[in-house]
């Protein structure tokens, strides 16, 4: 079973037979599909197949995780799935795919770009697509940025530290969220923690709010007094979510001075100790806000 098999199964199940057959016929020539035909297929897909959300069961999601760890097709659409499948059935196996992929992204409309980037992990030799994935993160269109950054294992696996750090910082910058970024804790690093603290200082100086999520990547590197002082400031916030974030960050700080600070936040410390306050819990609260 491959990702391609799964996507074929999902589309075949959801689409009327004549629509599914149309897609099969368009891609029947495989790698020999002429370029013009490929572009026309990609353009016609939403016109022919519609833009409904892809209907997926828990079993489908589990199957996706088995064939490609981290692959999360939840929230994919019919047209987006058909476009990724089309690339897999035609150009993805070709030696010149990285260049073709660059061209496809360069001329993509918004929905196409989202689909292409969501599929990054599914194409052969995904490491060769890294420069284009980075281009996606540079987009000013938040939904395109999130197609790479959110619910996508690609950045965690293929971005170097600098690329990774700038992606995390940009997520905050464009009012996006950190929680859907895969590998957030595993790829936290001292450089990123410093960048995020500097960013928090800029926000404070401008009188603007600081996302509670920011402290998640700071906590494990909050070692010296200056870093702890930043967490103190977050803890003094009038926003309960920011206080909770400060407490969570303190709970993983390597500094011996962090423990007593956390202990002073009695209730939050107790919630962390008994597992009722976690980043997942806090993130759900931010989602609801």
């Amino acid at each position, binding site marked *: 079973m491959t990702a391609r098999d799964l996507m074929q199964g999902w589309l075949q199940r959801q689409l009327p037979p004549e629509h599914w057959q149309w897609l099969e016929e368009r891609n029947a020539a495989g790698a020999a599909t002429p370029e013009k035909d490929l572009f026309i297929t990609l353009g016609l897909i939403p016109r022919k197949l519609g833009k409904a*959300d892809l209907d997926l069961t828990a079993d489908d999601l589990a199957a996706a995780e088995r064939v490609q760890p981290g692959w999360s097709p939840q929230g994919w659409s019919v047209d987006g799935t058909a476009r990724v499948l089309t690339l897999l059935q035609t150009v993805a196996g070709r030696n010149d795919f990285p260049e073709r992929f660059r061209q496809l992204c360069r001329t993509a409309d*918004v929905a196409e770009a989202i689909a292409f980037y969501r599929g990054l992990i599914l194409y052969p030799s995904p490491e060769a697509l890294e420069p284009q994935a980075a281009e996606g993160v540079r987009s000013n*269109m938040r*939904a395109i940025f999130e197609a790479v950054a959110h619910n996508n294992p690609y950045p965690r696996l293929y971005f170097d530290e600098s690329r990774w750090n700038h992606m995390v910082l940009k997520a905050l910058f464009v009012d996006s969220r950190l929680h859907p970024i895969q590998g957030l804790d595993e790829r936290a690093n001292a450089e990123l923690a410093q960048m995020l603290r500097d960013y928090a200082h800029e926000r404070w100086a401008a009188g603007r709010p600081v996302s509670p999520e920011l402290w998640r990547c700071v906590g494990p590197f909050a070692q010296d007094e200056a870093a702890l002082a930043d967490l103190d400031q977050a803890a003094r916030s009038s926003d309960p979510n920011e206080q909770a974030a400060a407490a969570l960050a303190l709970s993983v700080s390597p500094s011996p001075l962090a423990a007593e600070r956390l202990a002073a936040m009695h209730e939050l410390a107790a919630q962390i100790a008994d597992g009722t306050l976690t980043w997942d819990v806090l993130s759900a609260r931010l989602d609801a806000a």
Partner: protein
Amino acid sequence: MTTPMYIDPHAHMISRTTNDYEAMAAAGVVAVIEPAFWIGQPRTYVGTYIDYLSTIVGWERFRAGQFGIRHYCTIGLNSKEANNEELAEQVMEILPRFALKDGVVAIGEIGYDEQTPLEDKYFRAQLELAKELDLPVMIHTPHRDKKRGTSRSMDVVEEHGLPPDKVVVDHNNEETIAETLQRGFWAAFSIYPGSKMGNERMVELLKQYGAERIIVDSACDWGVSDSLAVPKTAKLAAERGIPQEQIHKACYANALAAYGQSGQMSEEDWLNPSPIDQRTLYAGNSILRGGAAPRIEEPVSPAQAEDKLIIR
């Protein structure tokens, strides 16, 4: 009373600022169509063209969404640049990859500028492309030698077998309207100060011809032009006694009917956008219209709204 909804079916938003989008949304413009056009400076590389077309199907569409305005576009090689044969050949190669993007409602604006043989060649080639892809066409009629250029444009469309009801002939005036309507085409008017149509003249035409197959647009671009030309014309028409139903046709419904034939534009897009479009095109600001009543931003100051009602 809710503010009436308007469509500006010819607006080069790539040349306009966020102030324009804000003012248009406040005035009731719910959707714009951005025709691919000449950007003032000739393009000399196909790459520049690719980036331009990518911008109007991508970034500009997204940008409009941030102001609660739905953005559509037309794709084509304009008549001026058709005279650069090397460029024109390369642009013709890449048009098929843009013509079916999300929100592309026609091939356009295409037609004649100086009516040269090269303009004729690429006008015809693009009519064939529209036929192949089953898309409506937006025709730019020439500024100079307009009457004959307009007749000739329609002759060529008929010669290529496109049905006139899928073709919008734009930049009409008092001299061209009768023939355009008589031959069954959509007749669009660009309310553009100085060179094209003024809105007082437009109101007179509505009195004389009614609103069947009449479309009002602004053609606002990098020149001295007015992004509020459609709502201003509607307001002037109402003041001068044109029935609301006719104003609705000329400033909203006819454009929707003509370009809606692409299958890419429907009222649902702004009255009840699909969840997917909300996630992708309206991300960022919570400025969704939500329901049938168009969202009214903070009202523009009365001085701003009344200012320059007459466009000459």
